C-alpha cells in the first residue's frame, strides 16, 4: 500500500500517522507539504492528520481547507483514492465541504483527552471491513472543537444512508446523535474525531485503530 500524509503548518499527529500506517499495514508513506500542487503517483490512501493547522485561527480547518494540496486531495478522492481525516483532518474535510456538517466547540467548553468506547455502526465501509463483526472499538479522543453538528435533514440522510460509521458510547463533547465518524456519499472519504493513530497497538491501550488502517489496506 502507498499512502500520503498531508502536513499543514500546525499539524502534530503527522508522524504518528506515518508510524501507525507503517507498523499496521507496511505501507510506504510519503509526507506531503500542504503547498504541493501534485501528489505522489499511485496512492491508495491520503491521511489528513490531527493537530492545529494554521493555529486553528478563524475556525478549525478553515485555512487548511484552502491550501493548494486540497484541490489534489479532492481530485484523488473523486478517482477512488481513500481519504481519511482524523481529528483536525476531519475539521479540514468539513471546511473543504468534502464532508457535510461542521465541528463545534465542545458542549462543556473543555478540551477532552481520553480513551472512548465507540460503536462501529457500519462495518461495510472500506474503512471498517476488518472489524469483521466486532461492534466495539476503543480509541483516544483529544479535541476542544469536536462536537459534530449538521442540520436535522443532513443527520437523517447520514443515518439513512449508513454513512454514520462510528458513534460514541458515552458522548464526550456534545456531538449530534453521538456521531464520531462519517463517510461521504461515495464512501471514499472518512472523517473521524477519535484517533486510530493513537490506538494501533496494545502498548497504547488499544490496538483497534489498526483495524481501520488494515481495512483500507484490504480495500486498496
Amino acid at each position, binding site marked *: 500500500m502507498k499512502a500520503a500524509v498531508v502536513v499543514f503548518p500546525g499539524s502534530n499527529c503527522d508522524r504518528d500517522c506515518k508510524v501507525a500506517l507503517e507498523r499496521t499495514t507496511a505501507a510506504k508513506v510519503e509526507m506531503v507539504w500542504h503547498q504541493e500542487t501534485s501528489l505522489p503517483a499511485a496512492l491508495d490512501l491520503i491521511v489528513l492528520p490531527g493537530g492545529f493547522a494554521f493555529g486553528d485561527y*478563524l*475556525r478549525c480547518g*478553515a*485555512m487548511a481547507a*484552502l491550501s493548494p494540496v486540497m484541490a489534489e486531495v479532492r481530485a484523488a478522492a473523486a478517482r477512488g483514492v481513500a481519504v481519511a481525516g482524523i481529528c483536525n483532518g476531519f475539521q479540514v474535510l*468539513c*471546511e473543504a465541504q468534502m464532508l*457535510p*456538517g*461542521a465541528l*463545534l*466547540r*465542545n*458542549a*462543556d*467548553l473543555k478540551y477532552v483527552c481520553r480513551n472512548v468506547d465507540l460503536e462501529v455502526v457500519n462495518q461495510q465501509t472500506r474503512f471498517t471491513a476488518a472489524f469483521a463483526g466486532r461492534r466495539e472499538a476503543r480509541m483516544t479522543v483529544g479535541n476542544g472543537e469536536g462536537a459534530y*453538528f*449538521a*442540520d436535522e435533514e443532513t443527520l437523517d440522510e447520514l443515518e439513512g444512508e449508513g454513512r454514520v460509521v462510528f458513534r460514541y458510547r458515552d458522548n464526550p463533547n*456534545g456531538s449530534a446523535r453521538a456521531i464520531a465518524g462519517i463517510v461521504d456519499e461515495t464512501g471514499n472519504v472518512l472523517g473521524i474525531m477519535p484517533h486510530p493513530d493513537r490506538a494501533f497497538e496494545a502498548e497504547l491501550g488499544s490496538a483497534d485503530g489498526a483495524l481501520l488502517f488494515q481495512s483500507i489496506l484490504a480495500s486498496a
Partner: protein
Amino acid sequence: MTTPVRAVVHVFLKAGVLDVQGKAVENALHGLGWAGVSGVRVGRVIEFDIAAENPFEAETAVKAICEKLLANPVIEGYRVEVAP
C-alpha cells in the same frame, strides 16, 4: 478610480446552533447579579480595507469573501458594514 473602503464583518453562529460560549457568558452574568440578561451570543468582528470603485462593489466583494472564508455557512451567519 479605486479607493480603499473600510469593511467590518460580524460573524455569529446561526440561530439553532448552540453557542456554548454565549451560554457560559450568560451564566457568568447571572452569577454577577444581572438576572435580566438573556440571549447572549459570542461572535467575532473582522475589519479590513478593500479597494473598490464604490461602496456597492465593495459590499459585493466582502460578501464573497465571507462566503469563501470568513464565515462557514453551515454554522454561521454574517453581517457586513462598509464605510468609505
